C-alpha cells in the first residue's frame, strides 16, 4: 500500500476515492493560506497564493507519504521542498492551459513553473489543450493523464 498525498486546490476528492478503492492510502492534503500575506505579496507583484506553501511542505513531512501529487506549480515546488527533506516522489499534473499572458506575469510565476516541470519526478497534463500548451510554451512533452483514470495515475507514481 502506497501513501499518496493529493495536494488539492479544488477537486482531487474523486481521485483520492478511486486510489483508495485501488488499495492505496490516498489523502487530500491542504494547507490554509494567510490572506493578508498573499495580499501583501500580490501588491508587490508576486504570483499567488504562496503563503500556504511552507505549511503544505510541513504537512507532507508530517504525513509520512511516499508520493506527493501536485496540481499547481507552487504546490509542486512545496512538494519538492518536502522531497529535499527526505520525502518521496513528486508528481505534477498541469491542469491549466498555459498561455503567453500568464507565463511570466508575476514574480516567481515563471520560476515556479520551471521548477514544477523541470524538477518533478513525473509531469503530466490533465487534458489535451493543457498538454499542447505545455509543449508550446514550456517545451515540455507530457502525456495526457486524465484525473479520473486512477490506474494511469498509479503508473505516474511509479506503482
Amino acid at each position, binding site marked *: 500500500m502506497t501513501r499518496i498525498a493529493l495536494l488539492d486546490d479544488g477537486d482531487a476528492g474523486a481521485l483520492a476515492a478511486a486510489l483508495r478503492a485501488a488499495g492505496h492510502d490516498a489523502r487530500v492534503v491542504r494547507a490554509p493560506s494567510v490572506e493578508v500575506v498573499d495580499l501583501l505579496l500580490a*501588491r*508587490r*507583484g508576486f504570483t499567488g497564493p504562496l503563503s500556504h506553501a511552507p505549511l503544505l511542505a510541513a504537512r507532507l513531512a508530517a504525513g509520512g507519504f511516499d508520493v506527493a501529487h501536485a496540481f499547481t506549480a507552487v504546490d509542486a515546488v512545496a512538494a519538492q521542498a518536502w522531497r529535499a527533506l527526505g520525502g518521496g516522489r513528486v508528481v505534477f499534473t498541469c491542469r491549466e492551459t498555459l498561455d*503567453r*499572458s500568464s*507565463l*511570466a*506575469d*508575476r*514574480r516567481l510565476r*515563471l520560476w515556479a513553473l*520551471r521548477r514544477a516541470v523541470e524538477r518533478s519526478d513525473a509531469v503530466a497534463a490533465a487534458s489535451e489543450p493543457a498538454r499542447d500548451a505545455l509543449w*508550446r*510554451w*514550456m*517545451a515540455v512533452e507530457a502525456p495526457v493523464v486524465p484525473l479520473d483514470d486512477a490506474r494511469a495515475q498509479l503508473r505516474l507514481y511509479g506503482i
Partner: protein
Amino acid sequence: MVVPSHGRPLRLLWLLNALEEQTLSGPWDVVVVHDYDAGFAERVLDRHPLARDGRLRHVPIPPGTGSPARQRNVGWRAARGRFVAFTDDDCRPEPEWLDRLLASVRDPETDVVQGATRPDPLEVHLLAAPHHRTMATEPPGPFFQTCNILYPRALLERLGGFDERAVSGEDVGLACRARAAGSRIVGARRAVVNHAVESHTLPGMVRENLKWRHLAYLVKRHPEVRRDLCLRVFWNADHLAMTLAVAGVAGAARDRRALALTAPWAVRASRRRGAGARARATALAELPGQSVRQLAEVAGLAAGSVRHRTLLL
C-alpha cells in the same frame, strides 16, 4: 531577421511563437544564432512551426564562444534578405512589427530604422520587484539598441557589421558608424517590440550590470556618445547623484558640510517609486539594495574607465 540567443531557451521559444503572428506578407525568415545543445535544437527549433514553414534557420556555435556582437554578425551574414531586422530573445514583437519597420524605409541603401521598445505589458507587474531589468526606448535614439532595429544588408556589409571587440554597447557603436557613413536613422514609433521584465536578486542584478563596465570602450571609440550622457561623463543622472553622495560621505570626515552632497541622491532615491506615502515607503525600504546596486554600477564603470583610459561613470 536575426536573433542571438544565450541562456534563455524558453524566452527564445516564446519569441519564435510571437513571430508566427507577423503580418508581413512578403518573404521573411529568421536566423537564430545560439549556443544551446543539439538536443534542444532538434527537439524545439527544428520542430518549430516556423522551421516547418521554412522561415526559421538556426546556427549553433560552441558554448562559451558567443557574444552579442559575434552572434549578430554570424546571423546577418547568414541571412538572405535585403534588410536585416534585429531583435533579442527576451523580446516579443507586436504582429505588425516587421511591416511597420519596412514601411518606414525611404532609402533602402542607407536608412536605419529603429522601432519603439517598451516593457512587456504582460509582465508589468514585475516592475514592482526592487531589482528588475527591462527596456524602454522612444525612437529615434539615443542608443539604437538591437532589440528593435533594422539595417539594410548592404550597409552592414559596408560597415563590416558589429565590432566584436565590444563586450557591450556594440549596437550603439554600429549606429555611430552608420551615421558617420551618412545613414539616416529613422524612428518608427508604431513598430513595437515588448521587452521582458525580469526580476533579479540583488547579487543577480549586480552581476547582470557588470557587463556595462565595458561601455568605456564604446565611449573611447565613439566620443560623440558623450553628447547623450549626463554632463558628458555620467551614464545617467542616478550615477551622477551616487558619485556626489560617495564624495560627500568620504568628505564628511574632514567637514560635515560635505554630507550635503548626498542630498541629490537621497531626493532621487526617495522619489524612485513616485509620489505618495506608499511609494515613498517602498522606495525607503528598497534604499539599501538600490544603493548597493548603483554603487556597484559606478564602481564597475570606474574600473572600465581605468582599463580603457577614458572617464565614464
